[in-house]
């Protein structure tokens, strides 16, 4: 977000959500509704002293260059408070891969749009939530309006099958199917629902994996504690390099997540009814 316009026409900015300064240098951006083009600039290597060369760059050292000659001209194009997004178009490449900005979590939005085209034996509230990246805020008010019994959170999640990662620290693997979260910093998935989803995947021969790290948080954290409580689970497409200008996914993971979510929605209402008939809500 643009926070200040320097007298020389360069823009200072604040980050919205978790972004590391190191991934920003030299990246193209679009600003405001009109998509004014800009680039995040930093001193070229020739002008850096040894501390700058050896240390990580900090956000406050970076500015956005929109090619304005001074503050006055910059103010004609942008305002303080304008939001800035990365300017990278999606590209299909390699072995069934796709690279794009914002896979976290437009990939979940894409799956939800497809899911809503189906018909199911229960009411489905497709919630496209706001402000997840700055503290799971939208999900809180959305779930208060819906008061759901069960919630599925569709996500793009971390995938560390990248160089210099020990196998035990690889959270998910690209191309090995949608990832189910057992636990992260925001939520412990409902055990019955999680088992139901993994059993469904097995029965339908849909590949899936469990996310191996407990970092990060999702809307599930807010939804679970809504009202008198909600049974929640998270299904996610593994995405390499999330929270950078370009992330990468395997298209088969998205297709399999859609298949899995569809199967679950088709059969879950009957399973819940059965659970109720057996007195699942009552101990005595």
């Amino acid at each position, binding site marked *: 977000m643009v926070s200040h316009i320097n007298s020389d026409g360069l823009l200072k900015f604040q980050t919205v959500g978790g972004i590391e300064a190191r991934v920003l240098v030299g990246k193209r951006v679009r600003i405001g509704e009109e998509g004014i083009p800009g680039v995040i600039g930093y001193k070229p290597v020739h002008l850096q002293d040894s501390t700058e060369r050896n240390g990580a760059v900090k956000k406050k050292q970076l500015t956005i260059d929109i090619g304005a000659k001074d503050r006055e001209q910059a103010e004609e194009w942008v305002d303080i408070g304008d939001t800035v997004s990365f300017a990278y178009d999606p590209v299909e490449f390699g072995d069934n891969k796709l690279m794009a900005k914002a896979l976290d979590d437009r990939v979940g939005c894409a799956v939800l749009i497809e899911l809503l085209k189906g018909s199911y034996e229960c009411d489905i509230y497709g919630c496209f939530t706001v402000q997840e990246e700055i503290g799971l805020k939208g999900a809180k008010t959305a779930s208060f309006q819906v008061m759901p*019994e069960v919630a599925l959170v569709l996500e793009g999640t971390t995938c560390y099958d990248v160089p210099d990662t020990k*196998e*035990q*620290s690889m959270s998910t693997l690209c191309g090995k199917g949608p990832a189910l979260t*057992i*636990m992260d910093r925001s939520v*412990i*998935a*409902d*055990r019955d629902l999680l088992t139901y989803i993994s059993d469904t995947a097995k029965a339908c021969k849909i590949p899936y994996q*469990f996310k*191996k*790290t*407990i970092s990060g948080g999702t809307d599930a954290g807010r939804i*679970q*504690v*809504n*009202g*008198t*409580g*909600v*049974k929640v689970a998270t299904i996610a497409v593994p995405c390499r390099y999330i929270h950078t200008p370009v992330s990468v996914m395997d298209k088969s993971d998205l297709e399999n997540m859609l298949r899995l979510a569809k199967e679950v929605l088709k059969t879950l209402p009957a399973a819940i009814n059965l659970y109720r008939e057996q007195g699942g*809500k*009552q*101990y*005595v």
Partner: protein
Amino acid sequence: MFELIDTLTQTFGPSGYEKKVAGTIADLLKGKVDEIRSDALGNLICVKKGSGKKIMLAAHMDEIGIIVSYIDDKGFLRFGNIGGIPPLMILGQRVVFENGTTGVIWYEEDIDNMKNTKLDKMYIDIGANSRTDAEKLVKVGDLAVFVGETVEQNGRIISKALDDRIGCAVLVQLALSRPQTDNEIYYVFTAQEEVGLRGAKTAAFGIIPDMALAIDVCDTGDTPSCKPMAVRLGEGPAVKIKDHSVIAHPKVKDRLINAAKEKNIPYQLEVMLAGGTDAGSIHTTAGGIPSGGVSIPTRYIHDASEMVDIADVENAVKLLAEFVKEMVH
């Protein structure tokens, strides 16, 4: 009392997996309360009906533990924490899984400075020779809890999971004693306290009580060179003034203090600087709920050998019995 504490502390129940504890408590209270129910998060809510005010008493069922995140080809398990676990405290500790599999926690010995030890440099050895071997007993996502049997000695109890099965024991004992009152009492055994006071939030929303208390443990300041705190083991249950999650409502705090004074029940005042309790999420529920707490002074919280004084536990039951009897104004 010892038998009850032993049963409750030794029942498997890390955060999110409290079903066994809930089952045990439900069995104990069957027929002693008017209604027993659970909710989506796994809270167990036991109600003694009444025409007076609604009083919610919450003790959490979940205990801290670990979750398996990876099994390597030699059969060693990597893990993450469930709740607050200081790495140095768990070195060499035993853990046990729900199916009874036992493991030992150790660390990668090339660590330069033990103080910087982190959980990702540690592993669990279940005596397996290979991944295949290990996977016969444990899979990724399985949870384990610390091993620590329950011992009574010198009027004190040493055990794992006294945080907060001791609170559960107090509530069970109180419910069994069936205090005579018009007030409607909700004995709530909550889920997922250790990972962020989650269960109490939905339980409180379902009840919207007029007043609530968290029955949990608090630190003490009576061991060699410890952090200063004006609470000692054996000098009575602690009336919560504040912890990191809540400032006790003056009305609730005063009511507890008055009840203790009137009945000559020993009590102490708790100002806990770190750590929160269910009262933290209850008091901001709906339009706000006057909340406080009664804490059992406990040494070595989150270690596999926590310690409480049995007299403090018994006095907590007495104090709560007085608290729920009084009319709420």
